């Protein structure tokens, strides 16, 4: 049972990097690729329907950490205190940009929230990289290190690559990606690249995680409720990808 819940945790973390990484990367690239307001509207419209289904992977990850690895949950989150606070604030800033950018008229209003999307996304990628490095080094090491910043830049670059590929896949031939086109296979490859930093960290902390798993009673009870729902979770995600992969761009975000 420990192995199943460790697997769930790993899948959620890697899934978050693969499925939310391109939203974050595209957010960072928004001012670079989207020179005009129309360009930025198309880029946001391309990623918008995937954001809600992407960020829930992290919410579920922290939930599983609490339920199945409870002694670690407090230690990890409080051990990374300033990074977790920064991660939350940048995540909320990015989300606020997406939710609010079209809720009022005027070019200035939308520019401000587009700025929130790119600043929030950049901060989110950097804090993720720094957090992964801190986790891999053990929590007693200082949080702000050169390696940490380096990790942040690597994650940000991987997300940017993934985000650019997503744009070239969802908006093939569009001037925002200089006419480039990418296939689904190309997108899967950059998803893999985006998930590598998370995968390496999971590999480093795997044994410590499994050692701290909750007692069998807790794991079995949660498993009995969650496992039957797994096909529904996967089905719902697949439905999102099936529905929004092609066709005109939604305009709500």
């Amino acid at each position, binding site marked *: 049972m420990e192995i199943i819940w460790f697997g769930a945790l790993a899948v959620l973390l890697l899934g978050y990097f693969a499925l939310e990484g391109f939203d974050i990367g595209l957010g960072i690239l928004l001012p670079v690729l989207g020179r005009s307001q129309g360009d930025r509207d198309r880029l946001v419209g391309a990623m918008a329907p*995937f954001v809600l289904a992407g960020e829930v992977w992290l919410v*579920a990850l922290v939930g599983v950490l609490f339920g199945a690895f409870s002694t670690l*949950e407090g230690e*990890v989150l*409080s051990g990374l205190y300033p990074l977790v606070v920064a991660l939350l604030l940048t995540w909320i800033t990015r989300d*606020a940009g997406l939710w609010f950018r079209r*809720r009022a008229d005027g070019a200035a209003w939308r520019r401000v929230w587009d700025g929130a999307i790119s600043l929030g996304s950049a901060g989110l990628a950097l804090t993720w990289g720094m957090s992964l490095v801190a986790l891999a080094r053990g929590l007693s090491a200082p949080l702000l290190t050169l390696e940490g910043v380096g990790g942040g830049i690597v994650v940000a670059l991987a997300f940017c690559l993934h985000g650019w590929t997503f744009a070239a896949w969802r908006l093939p031939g*569009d001037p925002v990606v200089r006419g480039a086109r990418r296939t689904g296979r190309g997108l899967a490859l950059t998803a893999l690249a985006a998930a590598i930093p998370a995968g390496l960290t999971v590999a480093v902390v795997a044994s410590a995680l499994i050692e701290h798993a909750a007692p069998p009673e807790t794991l079995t009870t949660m498993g009995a409720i969650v496992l039957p729902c797994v096909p529904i979770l996967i089905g719902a995600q697949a439905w999102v990808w099936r529905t929004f992969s092609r*066709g*005109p761009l939604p305009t709500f975000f």
Partner: protein
Amino acid sequence: MDVVDLARTQFAVTGSLHFLFVVLTLGLAPLVAIMHTRYAVTGDPLHERMTRFWGQIYVINYALGIFTGLVMEFQFGLSWSGLSRYAGDVFGAPLAIETLVAFFLESTFLGLWIFGWHRLPRALHVTCIWLVTLTAYASAFWIMVANSFLQHPVGSVEQGGRLVLRDFGALLTNPNLVFALPHVISAGLWTGGFVLMGASAYHLFRRTAEREFFTRSLRIGVVTATIGSALTVGFGYAQFGVIEATQPGKFDAAPESALGLMIGIGQLLQFGVMFVLLPLLIRNLLARWRWLHPLLMLITPLPFVAAIAGWLVREMGRQPWLVYGKLSVADAMTPGLSKAAITGSFIGFAGVLGLLALIDYLLIARAVRRGPGQVSLGMPDRPADPVPQPAHSL
């Protein structure tokens, strides 16, 4: 303030902000689902406009529910790591289940509903909003299971200084859950009903062109508020016996004023809705009596105030315990949490969430003011090809 007080205040402020938005989400979700179903069945454009207008209010409100909810979830680990160390194997289970099988699906289906206009077949699109409603209620259920465990820690025994799970069924039938859950859900309906009433009263008072739309919305609001307030008050009083048995002296620890405020608002409004507003639906008197409309607008915030007062009573009445009778709040705090860290995060969370909450309410007010004629939810999609657009189209 010392570090514990700061950490408690941070939790109270973010938690109160969270529930301000969640209470409306819980109330509006089923109403929007019913409106959408009526549209799908009848094809009547009025029901489509109602779905889109009230659906947009619901969605704008939902954004802040997410933002504040993220902070709530992570905050347990940030400032209260003693809770996960001592009780995580019990308390963590309902939270993990909530994130995996409730919120995960709620957010995914909400995305399908928001962006699925003109794309999903009508029946499937309606199914999405019902799934959003169902999973929102499931979410409320699991969160209340977790919270009720803190009030009355059943189903577990202490072993080696930690709580271990013995009987999960006892968590689901916790006496502190069975009346509190319907109390919270009914309070949501009541709040949703009042928002419909307040917004409708605004348009009817201003004599805008949407007379039929808001006469019917006002009727839905009053009926919902009647049901919601009656159930809220009933399940509220029903809790006194349980509290006396499981948390004697709760109301000595809770601020008297919050309890009095909640009961005062609840009782007064419930009678007012049932014996004044409901009868005035006959021959649409309420919609026609314009002098009453400012009053309806004025009382719109009251269910929100009562809801926050109710949470303050429930949570402050638990003091000084985090897990009642077992783990004190002071012992649950993260060891070594520095004053600088908690002050920094408190300023960050309260500042950012407070500002975004204010903006969100202004955006809701704006959406109400503009009325059903200018709704962006459900607008046509744009072609993916970049065609030159005039600057102010759409």
